[in-house]
């Protein structure tokens, strides 16, 4: 009998307490914010410094070494570097990122050796932008080409030409050196 009454009392008391708590929330401000149109400040500004948003590449800084593409576990990055006129190292021919596959693991950023030493938005060539809005109506729209296709084709052609030229030059030099060697040989032999 005591248990019987105790059950009733406990039910009422705990329900009362619970209702007091839920009521107290009616007197508090909701913590949710209305994204995106009624925000006081834009969301990327509120994000921490190293937030991993959208994967981007600084095509100027990139040395086309290909370490990021190698570090990626799921082949998100497809890139190629080639020679260019009047530039010492490699230049990007194309650099494509498939955002639909990217899992924001940061491995490519850590692999990137190209640093500009400045403490601005990014200091490596491949970096995460704070922007996280990347929806697209088609799956194909998630593929981002950082070098436009026309430009990429032009660069590819150019690098192929240079490569061909260099190959020719190399062939020339080897031929020359061989010829030189040929011509030198009797001389040397003569000397000996």
């Amino acid at each position: 009998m005591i248990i019987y009454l105790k059950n009733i009392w406990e039910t009422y008391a705990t329900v009362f307490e619970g209702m007091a708590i839920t009521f107290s929330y009616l007197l508090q401000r909701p913590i949710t914010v209305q994204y995106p149109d009624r925000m006081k400040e834009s969301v990327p500004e509120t994000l921490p410094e190293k937030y991993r948003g959208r994967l981007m590449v600084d095509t100027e800084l990139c040395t086309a070494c290909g370490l990021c593409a190698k570090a990626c576990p799921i082949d998100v990055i497809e890139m190629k570097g080639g020679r260019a006129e009047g530039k010492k190292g490699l230049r990007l021919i194309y650099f494509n990122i498939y955002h639909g596959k990217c899992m924001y693991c940061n491995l490519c950023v850590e692999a990137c050796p190209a640093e500009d030493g400045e403490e601005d938005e990014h200091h490596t060539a491949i970096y995460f932008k704070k922007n996280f809005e990347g929806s697209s109506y088609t799956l194909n729209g998630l593929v981002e080409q950082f070098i436009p296709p026309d430009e990429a084709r032009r660069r590819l052609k150019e690098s192929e030409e240079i490569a061909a030229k260099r190959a020719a030059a190399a062939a020339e030099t080897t031929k020359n050196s061989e010829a030189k060697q040929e011509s030198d040989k009797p001389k040397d032999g003569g000397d000996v």
Partner: protein
Amino acid sequence: MNFALPLLEKLKQEMTSKTSEIIQADSKMPILKIEAKDIREAVKKLHDDPAFDMKYLNCISGLHLTQTKEDGTLDLLGFEVLYVFSSARDFSTIAVRVDLPEKNPAIDTIDDLYGSANWFEREVYDLLGVNFINSSDLRRIMLPQDWEGHPLRKDYKEQASYNGMPTTRPNEMESIRIE
């Protein structure tokens, strides 16, 4: 890691067949390697003998033993099933390993001793194709019942389509290739 070498030696001595050996004795995880026919005896001893009191089955794992030959082809050497048990008293852990042949790998089940053994065994059966004799319920667990092959075998080839559904997806990157 508290993998207990003394317990393993004790188990080795108490086994009736003397073919068992302790491998990796100097590493962090010593393993007792026993023959497939002895598994029930060993596990029964571990489970029931108060000296061991191994009431807790941590894991049953399996793997396909292979060796890559010089020409790149695989030499299939059979299967390994690894049992890890813990004591209910002080949680010291031991590992028991069984090697099975490549053709028709089969081993006695232990799912009457451990409530969880059935699912672990089913997983090994599903992914590696090791048969557990006298198991109460040996069905595939992760893959559909009509799936072909056992994926964790090193010579596994994925079927091209399953019930008319292709198992691969086109790569969106293909469409923008300029080469």
